[in-house]
C-alpha cells in the first residue's frame, strides 16, 4: 500500500527489528507524575535508552524572585515542590533570616518542625499512593490519600490552605497554633500508626510487590554520590546523609529520631526508607508537641526589609532530599540573585542510568521510586 506523505506511516516490521522502537512517554501520560517527557528506545519490552525532556513547567521563578522584595518571594516557593510547600517556605525563610541575621523565637522553631514533619507525612503518602497505582495496586492510592486528607485537614486548620500554605515567615510563623491543635495531631498520630501497619499488610508483605521492586533500578553508592542525589534515594543506597542530622536546623538537634538507611539501592529500599521515615516523623511530632514552650511566634521586622550586602545559603531536608536556597544581597530591598537547588532535579538526572536494560514495566516503578515533582525541576 503506498503511503502518502501527509499520512503518518504505519510501523513496519523492519523498523521495529532494526533500530529499536522509539516511544514517547509523556508529557501527557498517567505515570510520569506531572509534565515529564521521556523518549525511550525499546527493544521489545527492554529499554535501550532513555532521554528525559524537562522544561514544560518552566516559569523563571529564580528571575522573578530578583524583581521582588525578599518576603514577597515566599508564595513563589509554594509552587516549587507543590507536594511539600512548607519545606520550601522554610528553605527560603531560613536563607533570608541568615542574610539579615534575624532570630526566630523558640516556639516558632517548634511549630516549624511540627509543620515540616506533617508535611513530610503528606508528601510521602502521595508517593506511597501513586507508587502503588504505578505498580497496579490501585487500592493503595485511595488508602494513602484517605490519610493524606487527614493531614491536609490539620494543616488547613492551622494555615488556612491545603496545598500552597505560605505559612512560614521570615522571623517565625504568622500565627500561633489553633486551640486544641496538639490533641488533634496526637489523635492522628495514634491512628496513623495503625494505618502504617495496614499499608505493610497490603504492600510491604505482598510477594508480587516484592518481586516487582526488589533488585530493580539498583543505584550503587558510588553512582549515587557521583550524581549528587539526596534524600530517600541516597539513603536507600547506603549513605546516611540527612540534613536534619548533618546540619541540624530549627530544633532537629533536640529531638530523637533515626535516619533509616538501606544498602540495597533498589526500588524496594527506596520504598522502605520512606515507610520508615513516616514512622520517624510520627516520633518527631510527638516529641515536638511534648517539648513545645510558650511564647511569641514571630520576631518584629521593619516594614521595608533590607538585609546587609552578602551571600546566604540555607539547606533543609525536604521530603525529596536536600533543598537549598542561595541568595545574594547588595543591601537593597530586592535580592540580586536567587538560586534554588531542587532535589528532584538532581535525583532525576540519574534516571537514564537506572533505566538502562530495564523493562518497560520497570520504568514506572523506578520513576515512581525516585519520586520527582516537576514543579521544582522546571522552576
Amino acid at each position, binding site marked *: 500500500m503506498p503511503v502518502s506523505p501527509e499520512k503518518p506511516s504505519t*510501523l513496519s516490521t523492519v523498523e521495529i527489528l532494526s533500530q529499536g*522502537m522509539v*516511544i514517547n512517554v509523556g508529557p501527557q501520560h*498517567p505515570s510520569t507524575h506531572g509534565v515529564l517527557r521521556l523518549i525511550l528506545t*525499546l527493544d521489545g*519490552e527492554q529499554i535501550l535508552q532513555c532521554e528525559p525532556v524537562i522544561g514544560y513547567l518552566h516559569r523563571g521563578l529564580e528571575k522573578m524572585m530578583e524583581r521582588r522584595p525578599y518576603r514577597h518571594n515566599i508564595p513563589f516557593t509554594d509552587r516549587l515542590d507543590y507536594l511539600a510547600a512548607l519545606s520550601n517556605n522554610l528553605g527560603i525563610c531560613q536563607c533570608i533570616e541568615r542574610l539579615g541575621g534575624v532570630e526566630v523565637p523558640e516556639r516558632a522553631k517548634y511549630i516549624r518542625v511540627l509543620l515540616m514533619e506533617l508535611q513530610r507525612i503528606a508528601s510521602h503518602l502521595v508517593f506511597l499512593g501513586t507508587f502503588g497505582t504505578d505498580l497496579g495496586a490501585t487500592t493503595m492510592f*485511595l488508602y494513602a490519600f484517605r490519610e493524606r486528607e487527614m493531614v491536609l485537614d490539620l494543616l488547613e486548620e492551622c494555615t488556612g490552605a491545603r496545598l500552597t500554605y505560605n505559612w512560614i515567615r521570615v522571623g517565625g510563623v504568622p500565627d500561633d497554633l489553633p486551640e486544641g491543635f496538639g490533641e488533634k495531631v496526637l489523635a492522628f498520630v495514634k491512628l496513623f500508626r495503625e494505618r502504617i501497619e495496614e499499608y505493610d499488610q497490603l504492600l510491604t508483605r505482598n510477594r508480587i*510487590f516484592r518481586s*516487582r521492586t526488589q533488585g530493580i533500578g539498583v543505584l550503587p553508592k558510588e553512582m549515587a554520590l557521583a550524581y549528587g542525589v539526596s534524600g530517600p534515594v541516597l539513603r536507600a543506597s547506603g549513605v546516611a546523609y540527612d540534613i536534619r542530622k548533618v546540619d541540624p536546623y530549627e530544633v532537629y538537634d533536640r529531638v530523637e529520631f533515626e535516619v533509616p538507611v538501606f544498602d540495597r539501592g533498589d526500588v524496594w529500599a527506596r520504598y522502605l526508607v520512606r515507610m520508615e521515615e513516616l514512622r520517624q516523623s510520627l516520633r518527631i511530632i510527638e516529641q515536638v508537641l511534648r517539648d513545645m514552650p510558650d511564647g511569641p511566634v514571630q520576631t518584629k521586622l521593619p516594614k521595608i526589609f533590607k538585609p546587609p550586602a552578602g551571600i546566604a545559603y540555607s539547606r533543609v531536608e525536604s521530603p525529596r532530599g536536600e533543598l537549598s536556597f542561595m541568595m545574594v544581597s547588595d543591601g537593597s530591598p530586592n535580592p540580586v540573585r536567587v538560586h534554588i537547588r531542587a532535589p528532584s532535579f538532581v535525583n532525576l538526572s540519574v534516571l537514564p542510568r537506572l533505566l538502562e536494560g530495564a523493562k518497560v514495566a520497570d520504568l514506572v516503578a523506578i520513576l515512581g521510586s525516585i519520586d520527582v515533582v516537576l514543579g521544582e525541576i522546571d522552576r
Partner: protein
Amino acid sequence: MIGAVAPFFQQYPLLWTFVKAVVLASFTLVIPLAVIWVERKVAGFIQSRLGPLHVGPQGTLQTVADALKLLLKEDIVPAGADKRFFYIAPYIAFISTVLSFMVLPFAPGWVALEMNVAVLFVIGVSLFNVVSILMAGWSSNNKYSLLGGLRAVAQLLSYEIPMVLSVLAVVFYTGSLSLTGIIEYQVKHGWNIWHPPIMIAALIYFICALAEINRTPFDLPEAESELVSGFNTEYSGMRFAFFFASEFANNFFITAFAAALFFGGWDGPVLPPMVWTFLKVFVMIFVFMWVRWTPPRLRIDQILRFAWQLLVPVSLLNLLFAIALGVK
C-alpha cells in the same frame, strides 16, 4: 416458562434459532452492565469509598448511562490505522464471547445449543479473543497499543495451555466433553471440586482465568500506568464499549464455566437451579474482584515464567493424576 414456549417455536427451527440468538446476544450485552455495577460497588467497598450512588437507586443505572454515553460518542479512527482490522476487532471479541455463551447451561434444558463437544468448542472460540486483541493492538498504529497487544498474546497463549490442561483433567475425570454431561455427572457423584485431582485443576483454572480476563495481577495488556490503556488505547465510543462489554461478559462466562466444571453448575438444594448458577457465578466474580483490587501487577517476564515453569508442569502432572484416577 421455557417448557411453555419451546414446543411452539420448535415447529419452526429457523425461528427458534433466531430467537435464541437474539436472547443470547442481548444477554451478553446486559450481563456486563450488571457485572460492571457490581465491580464498581465492590471496588468502592474495598477502597473505603462509596462507588456510584446518584444514577438510579444505589447507582444501579450508572453503567446504563455510561453505555448510552458511549453510544452517542463520535467514532474516531486514528490516522494511519489499518481500517479494516480496526473496525472488526471489537466485534470479533464480542462474537467470540457470545459464541461461548451459546453452549453454557444455566439450568436443566436452559442451553441455547446442546453440544456434545461443548468444552472443546468453548476453548476454540475463546481463542478468537486473542486474535481480536492482537488485531486491535496492531491496527491502531499506536506503539502503546502494539505493546499491549503483544503482551496480551504472549500472556493469553501461555495461560491458555495450563487452563486447557486443567479443563482436560475434568473431562477425563467425568468422561464427558459436554457441559450438561459434566454437570449431570456431578449431580449424581457430588461436585468435582471435592475430588483431589480436580481440586488442583480448579486452582490452576482460577489462576489462568484471572490471566485470561486480564485482571490484576495479570492486567498487563492494558496496564494503565505503563501503556496508557494498552491495546484499546485508540478505541472510543461504541467500539470501546464492545471491548469493554466482551471483557466483562467474559468475566461472567469464565466463572459460569468454572461453576459448570467444578461446582456442579445448577446443582444445589432448595433454591431453583437457575438461582444456583447465578449465585455461584457471582460469588466467584466477587472473589475475582477481591483479587483484582488487592495486589499489584506482575511484570511480563514474571508472568510468563510463572506459567511455563510452574503452571504447565503442575497441570500436566495433575492431568496424569486425573486420568489414572478417573478413567473407568
